[in-house]
Every structure is written in structure tokens, then in C-alpha cells.
């Protein structure tokens, strides 16, 4: 294989075939190898922490506090969890192969029909092979290394394509992943959409894409040519339903958490950031006042909020307020600084529902508040819209919680907090409908890059002659007995068995 620049000119064919060769050699399946890779990742996170903070600050103006909380810290914990559990996950799992008796009276649904008795059955996880991970610019470390750790734990060879829109982080990964991981089996390919396109010309054993729906469609269409399975983590408008909260303390806690989930998370540029709020008409002014005072307390220095990624997105956000019908609904903030690419926390009250800000994913520090007459109306509001990656609800009302869970659909639902579901290893993370498909985090990251192979083993011992032609009515009759809970006939049949 030539240098990556040569590879790029030639369409990456050499890169892919080299990785396939490495994978076929069995190197990445070895459990010791997987352990060394996961340990390598942990070492990288520990030793290069300062540098990671630096590049995240360069690319996005993220404060190290946010970077640790959202990318480095939770990632280290997640990799540690994989290190402890991957051997268990990779082990064959016994499946039931009890004698099956198919009858409505039977209380135990067993497994193998009589014709296959006796047998042992198990499920054997195996790596898919050579996989490709497309990362995104807003959590450029987390969205690369979390799936990478899953793919490695599962025993795959991996190509990672970080987003070119976070160039310092991409360069950091390209320089350091080869140092801490097995550079023969883990490759970083830098570049923009053209590189992505060239990579997708090839067959992969799995592709994970995090990004926009538009590009998601392109990726899946290209994957279809090779029957490459894909997982798509797409965006959406994540709503936050805020119920009437009686106690001041509850309201303050809710506001703290909503602010952290909007402006404290990459300035709202996150797939699971709160996009807009739904609240009862009468509660809205109270909420807005609390937002104002808390925002002042939290963001005492500009460095505590990330900046907008680049001019293009800055302009996009600016344009959302172009329409005077939208601009007139701004109740707080609204100051855009094109020089520093920063936008102050901005709140709108009831912008028109057909405006861009209410139909497109905002991905920025603008928070529309939509009022409803009764909080239950928000459920109907959500049902008529595309399924989001996350739905948030701040409420103490158990009935409302149950209704939200049962009557809406989303990747996930979180009550009385936001974003924190991202850092949990026990629940799957992923979208549904327009927000994507495929889940990862924790054990799900391992499974995303695995195939669960079914294995059944038989002995030569017992044979049932009615399994074989020539078939006549008596054999069919015997078979019917075998498929019913008909012990006597069964026993008699069994006696005439062995040739």
C-alpha cells in the first residue's frame, strides 16, 4: 500500500485489500489483541488528555470542563467497561435445545423438534470483518472513539474517517491512533465528502455513519451496491416537554439541566441537544425569567460556551432569524458576533410553526419555546412530527410520563434530565424512523460490529426413519404423533427406530 495520499488518488482499493488481508490473518480476532487495543485507547485518553482539550477548543471553542464531561471522561469509563466485559460478550452463548413438544397444552416452549433431538445449540459471536466509521464534527473525539472501541472489542479491522470540519481533531487522531493502536489494523483516513464517496465505492462488512439525513441516504444507497450493512445515527429536533412544576427548587433544577443540555453542550450543536421546549402558556413566563437569571449565573465568561463551528453554520443560524415574524418573537439574547463566530444564548417565544426554525434541526444556541393550552397537548404535537433521537420531559406527573413513553416514539426518552443518557453503558443509543437506525454504546457497540452465528451440533446416535423418503401415509401419521404431545405413540415409534 502506498501513502495515504497515493491511496486517495487511487481510490483506496489498496487500503481496503490490505486491511482485508490483515483481518483474514486472524490477528484482530485474537482476544489478547483486542485487549491490547482497548488498553491502548485508555492510555491515549489518559496521556493525551491535555492535547485533546486543546484540539476541541481549537475546533469548537469547547471549554475543557465540557470536553471532559462529554467526551473524554465518559469515553474512558465506557472503554474501561468494554475492557472488563468484552471476553464475556465474545464467548459462545448456549441456546435452549430441549426437546420440542408443539402443543397448546404445553407449558414450556422448547426448542428443537423431535426430528432434531438430541442436539446442542449455541450462538457464537464473530466479528464482521473490515468496518468503516464515519464520525461527526461536534463530538469529534467521542463519536469516533466510542464506536471504534466497540469495533475493536468485537475483533474487527477498522477504518475511521473523522470529519474534516473539525480539522485539528482529525489531525490529532491521524497522528495518535497509529501510535497507540495497531496501525496495521486500524487506519485513519482524513478528508472531505470526496474521500467519503471514494471509500463507499468499496464493500465493507459494516458502515456506521453519524451525520445528516441527506448524507445518510447517500451512504446507504452506495452501501446497497455491495450489500454492506449500515447503521445511521442521524439528527432530529429533540423536544423538551416542561410540565408545570410547583416547587421553586424543582423549577430551578429543571432550568439548570435544560440550559446544560442546550447551551452547555457544544452550544446546542449536538444531535441530542434540546432543540425546542413545549410548555403550558401560563408557565412560560416563569420559565423564561428563570432561564434569564440562570444563564447570567452560568455563563459568566464567554469561554464557557462553545462557538459555532464555522461561517457557513453561523450564517445558517443567522438566517433562521431573518424572517421578521420569527425575529419579533425573540425574548432574550439575539446577539450574533460574526468575528468570534459566537451567538449569545437566545430564546424565542412561539415563532410560527411553519418557519425554518421550527421545521429544521436548529443545531445551535437558539431555543424556541412553544406554548400549549394543556401540557398533554404536547403529545399530539410530537406525534405529528418525525421521530426524534431523544424526547425529554420534566415532570413529576407519573401519568404524563407513562403517556409520553407509550404514545410517542423516539430513539430514547429521558425524564427530568437531558444528555446524560448518552454516557450510560446499560441502555442502547440510537434513533428510529427519521433519526436513524442501529444502536450502540456499552454492549450494543460490541454487537453493532458482530455477527451472531447460530450453531447446532448433532450426534449420529438417534435417527428417526420417518424423516426420510419414500413417504407414505404411515410415516406422515408418525410424524404427526411426533409433533404432538402423544407419548404412547411416540414411544412405540421410537422403538422401531434404529436401523
Amino acid at each position, binding site marked *: 500500500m502506498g501513502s495515504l495520499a497515493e491511496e486517495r488518488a487511487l481510490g483506496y482499493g489498496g487500503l481496503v485489500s490490505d486491511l482485508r488481508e490483515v483481518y483474514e490473518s486472524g490477528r484482530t480476532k485474537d482476544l489478547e489483541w483486542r485487549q491490547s487495543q482497548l488498553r491502548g485507547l485508555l492510555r491515549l485518553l489518559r496521556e493525551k488528555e491535555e492535547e485533546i482539550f486543546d484540539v476541541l477548543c481549537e475546533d469548537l471553542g469547547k471549554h475543557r470542563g465540557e470536553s471532559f464531561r462529554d467526551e473524554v471522561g465518559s469515553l474512558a469509563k465506557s472503554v474501561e467497561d468494554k475492557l472488563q466485559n468484552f471476553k464475556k460478550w465474545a464467548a459462545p452463548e448456549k441456546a435452549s435445545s430441549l426437546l*420440542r413438544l408443539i402443543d397448546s397444552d404445553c407449558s414450556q416452549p422448547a426448542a428443537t423438534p423431535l426430528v*432434531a433431538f438430541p442436539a446442542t445449540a449455541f450462538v457464537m459471536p464473530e466479528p464482521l470483518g473490515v468496518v468503516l466509521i464515519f464520525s461527526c464534527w461536534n463530538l469529534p473525539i467521542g463519536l469516533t472513539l466510542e464506536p471504534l472501541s466497540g469495533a475493536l472489542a468485537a475483533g474487527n479491522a477498522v477504518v475511521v474517517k473523522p470529519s474534516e470540519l473539525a480539522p485539528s481533531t482529525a489531525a490529532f487522531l491521524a497522528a495518535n491512533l497509529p501510535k497507540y493502536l495497531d496501525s496495521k489494523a486500524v487506519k485513519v483516513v482524513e478528508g472531505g465528502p470526496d474521500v467519503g464517496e471514494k471509500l463507499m465505492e468499496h464493500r465493507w462488512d459494516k458502515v456506521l455513519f453519524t451525520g445528516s439525513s441527506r448524507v445518510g441516504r447517500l451512504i446507504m444507497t452506495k452501501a446497497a451496491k455491495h450489500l454492506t450493512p449500515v447503521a445511521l445515527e442521524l439528527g432530529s429536533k429533540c423536544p423538551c416537554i416542561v410540565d408545570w412544576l410547583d416547587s421553586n427548587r424543582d423549577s430551578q433544577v429543571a432550568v439548570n439541566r435544560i440550559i446544560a443540555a442546550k447551551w452547555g453542550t457544544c452550544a446546542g450543536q449536538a444531535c441530542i441537544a434540546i432543540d425546542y421546549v413545549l410548555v403550558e402558556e401560563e408557565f412560560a413566563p416563569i420559565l423564561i425569567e428563570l432561564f434569564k437569571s440562570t444563564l447570567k449565573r452560568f455563563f459568566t465568561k464567554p469561554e464557557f460556551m462553545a462557538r459555532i463551528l464555522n461561517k457557513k453554520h453561523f450564517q445558517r443560524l443567522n438566517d433562521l432569524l431573518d424572517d421578521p415574524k420569527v425575529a419579533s418573537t425573540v425574548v432574550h439574547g439575539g446577539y450574533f458576533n460574526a468575528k468570534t463566530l459566537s451567538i449569545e444564548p437566545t430564546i424565542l417565544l412561539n415563532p410560527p410553526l411553519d418557519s425554518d426554525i421550527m421545521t429544521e434541526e436548529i443545531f445551535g444556541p437558539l431555543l424556541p419555546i412553544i406554548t400549549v393550552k394543556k401540557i398533554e397537548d404536547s403529545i399530539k404535537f410530537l406525534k405529528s412530527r418525525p421521530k426524534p433521537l431523544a424526547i425529554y420531559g420534566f415532570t413529576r406527573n407519573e401519568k404524563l410520563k407513562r403517556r409520553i413513553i407509550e404514545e410517542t416514539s423516539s430513539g430514547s426518552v429521558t425524564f427530568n434530565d437531558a444528555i446524560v443518557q448518552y454516557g450510560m453503558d446499560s441502555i442502547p443509543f440510537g434513533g428510529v424512523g427519521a433519526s436513524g437506525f442501529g444502536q450502540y454504546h456499552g454492549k450494543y457497540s460490541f454487537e453493532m460490529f458482530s455477527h451472531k452465528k447460530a450453531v447446532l451440533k448433532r450426534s449420529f446416535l438417534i435417527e428417526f426413519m420417518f424423516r426420510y423418503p419414500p*413417504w407414505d401415509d404411515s410415516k406422515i401419521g408418525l410424524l404427526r404423533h411426533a409433533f404432538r404431545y402423544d407419548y404412547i405413540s411416540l414411544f412405540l415409534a421410537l422403538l422401531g427406530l434404529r436401523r
Partner: protein
Amino acid sequence: MAEAVVRELRASFTAGRTRPVEWRAAQLTALVRMIEEKEADISAALQADLAKPHMESYLHEISLAKASCKFSLKGMKSWTKPEKVPSAITTFPSTAQIVPEPLGVVLIISAWNYPFLLSIDPVIGAIAAGNAVVLKPSEIAPATSSLFAKLLPEYVDNSCIKVVEGGVDETTDLLEQKWDKIFYTGNGTIGRIVMAAAAKHLTPVALELGGKCPVIVDSDVDLHVAVKRIVVGKWGCNNGQACIAPDYIITTKSFAPELVDSLKRVIKRFYGEDPLQSADMSRIVNSKHFNRLTSLVEDKKVADKIVYGGQTDEKQLKIAPTLLLDVPLDTALMTGEIFGPYLPIVTVEKIEDSIDFINSKTKPLAAYLFTKNKKLQDNFVTNVPAGGMLVNDVALHLTNPHLPFGGVGESGMGSYHGKFSFDCFTHKKAVLIRGFGGEATARYPPYTQEKQKILRGLINGSFIALILALLGFPREKR
């Protein structure tokens, strides 16, 4: 037309008709009744479409479909319950659960070779999971297709479960609609078309495709039993027209003659001297496939390798069980999926060489090994990627509902059977429930050094950090 169907189903689904477990159970119970009451009609349709012997229809389609229904009926109650999972210390106090919910309106495109089972089985999973369903049976098995179109409305809720018959045009029309999942059983060429169509709407897909299923036969086996199982797995499964039927055999050069002899004897015993007259053998589904198959052995360098069989009857669309030995590897017979009654035997020097041979081809839907040698068994299981595998038998793994059934690589993506069918049409929604307690100011700006220390400890799982965080450290000036 497809648009109207989808619209109606979406309305039914949004109205919540398919959600109650009672509704789902009622549909599945009705399906069981349908299979019991109409067994003769189903068997007749399969006989018309494929000349399938009644025994095969009963064993491979009808009984499995009924069992699948009953298994889902029993399992549904627990499958639909939310699953509690451990919560994290960082979100203390909180509870977490995984709530299964239906995807919505799903499309199931079935195949022609097991037209009854391959239609009903995924439909069972979709219903159990609470979805609205459109079933598009294969037009290449027209009797079974019209049977579905007639029977399903008599037994199940027609506002939520529909049959759409038709060929390429109707299928294309269906594929242009927006579905919440598409489940396709068939070949890789159409599979690619299905996935590309799904990509336009970001619809997830499950593709149950085919491949060349290899059978390794070692010399240490109980040969008579092994051969019986291979023969019934090949020609007793729709005359080789099954995605999991053995496609080719690999054995050692030294063992091949004995294996071929045994195969000949068993084929003769099962199907008689003139297999074309045997009532126990399915026919080839149509003349297009008949011609496809016969052209595979037209070439002299392939025809010369026939060691048994080879007779054909074009009028009846029947081809006799045919054995071939050491066909050149670059021929169509050896590179593409046969899906018919030809069984080539490949010979290798050492039996272990068969592993590399299999791995040099695309990943099969199923791989089979006959041996008593534990080391070879382990080597096979560990080193041969495949959808599923069986040691010392053929095809049966698909009857175990505790095992996921599906392909990998060229043989497909996604799996089903048993609970896996339910999962195939389900979204596992993560639900995290926190209270207003456990407020850790350490997570909010302004980000001070002290806060970062506590957050670090908290994320690393330190109890002390948790307590400090919960006590509101660091204290902030208001």
C-alpha cells in the same frame, strides 16, 4: 395503489389498533386456526406451485409455521414487557429501562420456494411486535399467493394486515413508499434493489439471501446416517431449491469414491430407480429456472463430471438428483448458487483444506460439517464465518426458535425466528427516569477547577466524589 394501502395502514397504526397485546394475540391465534383448518388447501397450493410432496409441505412449511405462531403467542407477554437495566452512578438517583415498541408499518416480500412459511414466519414476528403489515407473496408461486390473498382477510384484521399480489411493477410501486422496515427474502440482485429503494426513505431492512452452502464430509463419520441426512437435506428440501440446502460437498480425494457410492445407494433407496417418477420429489418451479439449471451442465467439461443422475423431463419440469465429481472451479456451476438438484463434490488432499476453500468464497447462509473429530469441529466453528452452522446434520438449525436465523455478508443482514422475529420489527427505546434530587452543580458552568475535580471523580465512579457532588460542592456564591 400502494400509496393508498400504506395510507390506510398508517392510519390504523396511528390509531393504535395494533398496539394492544390482546389484538396481537387474537391475530396469531387466528393464524393458527387458519393453518389448522386450511391445511389441505395450503398443501394443494404448494403441490400446484412446486409439486411439493405432502410430507415436505407438512414437515417444512405447515408445522413450522404453526409452531412459530404458538411460540410467539407464548413468548409475547414477556417480550413486550419493558426490561429494567442498571442505572449509572453519574445519574444517581435514576432508573433505566428498555421499552420495546413497534416500528410502525412494515413490508414483507416473500420468496417462491417456501412460499407459505417464508411469508407467514416474518408476518408472525411483525404482528407480535405490534406492527401493521403488508405481505407481498412471490408471484412465481401463484397458487400460494392467491391463497394468501383469499385466506388472510378471512382470518385476520384486514385494516392492519394486507396482502398485495403482483410482479415487478407492483413490487416497484410498493418499494417507492415509505415503510418503517422492509423484510426481503430472495436473491442478492433484488436484495440490492430493495436496499437502494429503502435508502431513499432511510428505511432499515432485513435481507434473507442465499449463497453456496458447503458440506464438509470427513471420513470418520457414520457414513450411512450422514449420507441420509445430506440427501434429505438436499433433495428433500424442495429438490435443492432452498437457501440452506447443501450446494456442494467437500471431502478428501481418498474418501470421495466411498462417499459417492453411499450417496448413489441412498438416492436410489429414497427416490427409486427412476427419480423422475418419484412422488417424493419436488419439481423445478418454472421453465426459466429449469433452463437456467440445465444450462449449468451443458458445457462438456461439466457434463463429463456427472457421476450419477442427470436425467431431465422438460414437460414435468423435473430434474433427477445429480452428482458431479471435481467440476472445474471456474464454471458457473461452481461459482454461482445452484438452487437445484445438482450436487458437485469437490475433493481436497487433507480435510482441513476445506476450511480455506470455503473461506475463499463469500460468506454462506449455512455451512455444514460431518465429522466426529472435535478439533475439526472447533476449527470449523471458530474459523468459518457463516449465517449459521450445523455439525453432523443439515438444515435443522432453522427449526430451533432459540437460534437466530439469518445471513452475513452476501448471504444477507438481520435475523429472525422465535424472539428474533419480534426483535426484527421492534425498536428498543431507552428510557431513563430521573428525579429532581441528586443535583450536582459540578456539571454546570462556570467550570472551575474544583468542579472539574469532582466531576472527574464522579465520572470515574468514585463514591466520595458522588457524595460531594450531591452535597452541592463546590458551594457557589449566589
